[in-house]
């Protein structure tokens, strides 16, 4: 069957001047996503602001965003608030670092030694499901100071996940890497430091990132229950004196703190394992 051969004109290329290219760049980036984000976030804010007058049930005691903003201005100027930040951050740092210092070597050791793994891992599996919050009373009884108990709970939160991820990462290294190293003549120590450890770093980093999130969760719990300073305590205290705006500000502060620390961990991870795509 014969057809009329018509070739469509090739698309005219736009001029490649810088101005034209910038305009094109903007038009490409002005994506649907940003508009949608703006829509949903602003509707949420509006809903919150006008929830009480609109008669939505249950929000009578919830302060609107305007009140929260006012309260936050007040809090940001109080020394109590910033001290609380410092204290909470310090506890996170201690607990998290302890979890890494114990968890990573233990994880690597268990992954290297099958007998140790089969002996110790069942104990881990028994203890791990117990929520760290349930450990709070034991921690209070056992450790001489409150501070230590809080740090211990933070440690527990991060520890399990770090351990699991480290073991998992080391155990799932492609055996070909090992074989390649051995056929190139490396001894056991070399094998560990040059093959196993670097290959496990990505998993360790994931464990750290998730562990950081869990650390903050535990901190809030521990400070609310057993602390007398810190952001978590401020949160609970706000509730007890019915200063809900303070609660909300503390919630957001903790959220921001958690976000920043997670990002820090990820940054460290990228630094430690530059060959890995983030």
């Amino acid at each position, binding site marked *: 069957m014969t057809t009329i051969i018509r070739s469509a004109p090739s698309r005219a290329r736009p001029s490649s001047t810088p101005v034209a290219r910038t305009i094109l760049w903007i038009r490409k980036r002005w994506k*649907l*996503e940003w508009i*949608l*984000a703006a*829509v*949903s*976030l602003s509707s*949420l804010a509006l809903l919150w602001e006008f929830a009480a007058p609109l008669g939505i049930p*249950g*929000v009578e*005691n*919830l302060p609107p965003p305007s009140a929260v903003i006012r309260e936050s201005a007040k809090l940001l100027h109080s020394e109590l608030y910033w001290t609380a930040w410092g204290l909470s951050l310090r506890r996170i740092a201690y607990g998290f670092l302890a979890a890494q210092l114990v968890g990573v070597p233990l994880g690597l050791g268990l992954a290297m030694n099958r*007998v140790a793994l*089969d*002996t*110790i*891992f*069942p*104990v881990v*599996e*028994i*203890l*791990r*499901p*117990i*929520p760290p*919050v*349930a450990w*709070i*009373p*034991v921690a209070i*009884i*056992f450790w*001489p100071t409150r501070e230590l108990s809080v740090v211990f709970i933070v440690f527990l939160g991060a520890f399990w996940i770090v351990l699991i*991820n480290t*073991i*998992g*990462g080391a155990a799932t290294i492609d055996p070909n890497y090992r074989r390649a190293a051995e056929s190139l003549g490396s001894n056991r120590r070399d094998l560990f430091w040059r093959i196993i450890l670097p290959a496990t770093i990505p998993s360790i980093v*994931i*464990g750290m*990132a*998730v562990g*950081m*999130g*869990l650390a*903050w*969760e535990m901190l*809030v719990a521990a400070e*609310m*229950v057993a602390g007398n300073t810190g952001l978590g305590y401020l*949160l609970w205290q706000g*509730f007890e004196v019915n200063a*809900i705006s303070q*609660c909300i500000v503390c919630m957001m502060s*903790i*959220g*921001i703190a*958690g*976000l920043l620390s*997670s990002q820090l961990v990820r940054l460290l991870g990228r630094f430690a394992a530059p060959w890995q795509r983030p």
Partner: protein
Amino acid sequence: MIQPIAPARGSLDAALPSGVPWWMRARRVLRSRRLYLAILGVGTFFLRWYMLVDVLRFWRFRELPGFVASIREWVSPNPVYGISLFTSDYYLHIWSSLYRVYSAFALATLLGITIGILMGWRRVFYGLTFPILELFRPIPVLAWIPLAIILLPGRELPIIGLTFLAAFFVTILNTLLGVRSIDPVYFRAARSLGFSELGILVHVILPGALPYIFVGLQIAMGACWFSLVASEIASGQAGLGYEVWQAYYYVQFETMVIIMATLGFLGYVSSALVRLVAHRLMRWRSSVIASV
């Protein structure tokens, strides 16, 4: 702050090919070295507890509840502090907690998977919901306790609400990840074969995301127990979390240990149940999903 993690290598319930009869599997386990090492490990742990607390009374360990005392309390028909295998209070607390956890988990699974799949399926939906999600996700679940108590009426709802929240975020995230992880070639094949949009949803997206969804569900189950205990401590009247705190408060340390052990056991069983369901639903996978 809940983030999805990739499945890590698993525990005692290692991958065994399907189709091997149970008695053969049992025999294999009994013959293996692993079982005895496990017994050794667990036994050593309890032995150390006993030695440090009951016998040596070393440093702060003397303050801790004794191993023997706790066991004795647990199995006595007439316990000193009112909680043992034979008291009805024990089961009352267990039931309260179980009820809360499982209702919250069911709700979170239903809503979370639905929203996660919608987010993965439709860009507009994703664009609307993702910013809100990212806004709320960094806030620790437990920081919501005061707000939950204020906003939700009664005593049960705040607890269930918090437990729900913990599982909710994790489930959404992992479902989304699951949908995204589906190799695009399957979508192309489905389109080439003339599937309708609904057909793609039911036959490609849902089954394809299922592995990640179940990893998320395991994490969610753990998160549920965690926030349950915390919220029970904060505002409960019955339940294992509440009882742990009461036991501490009234210096009934043996009871405390019993409750902790119970919590651990129930948590483990719950996760194992999720894994079991996963195994059933995903028989096409030649390897069992590793536990988290």
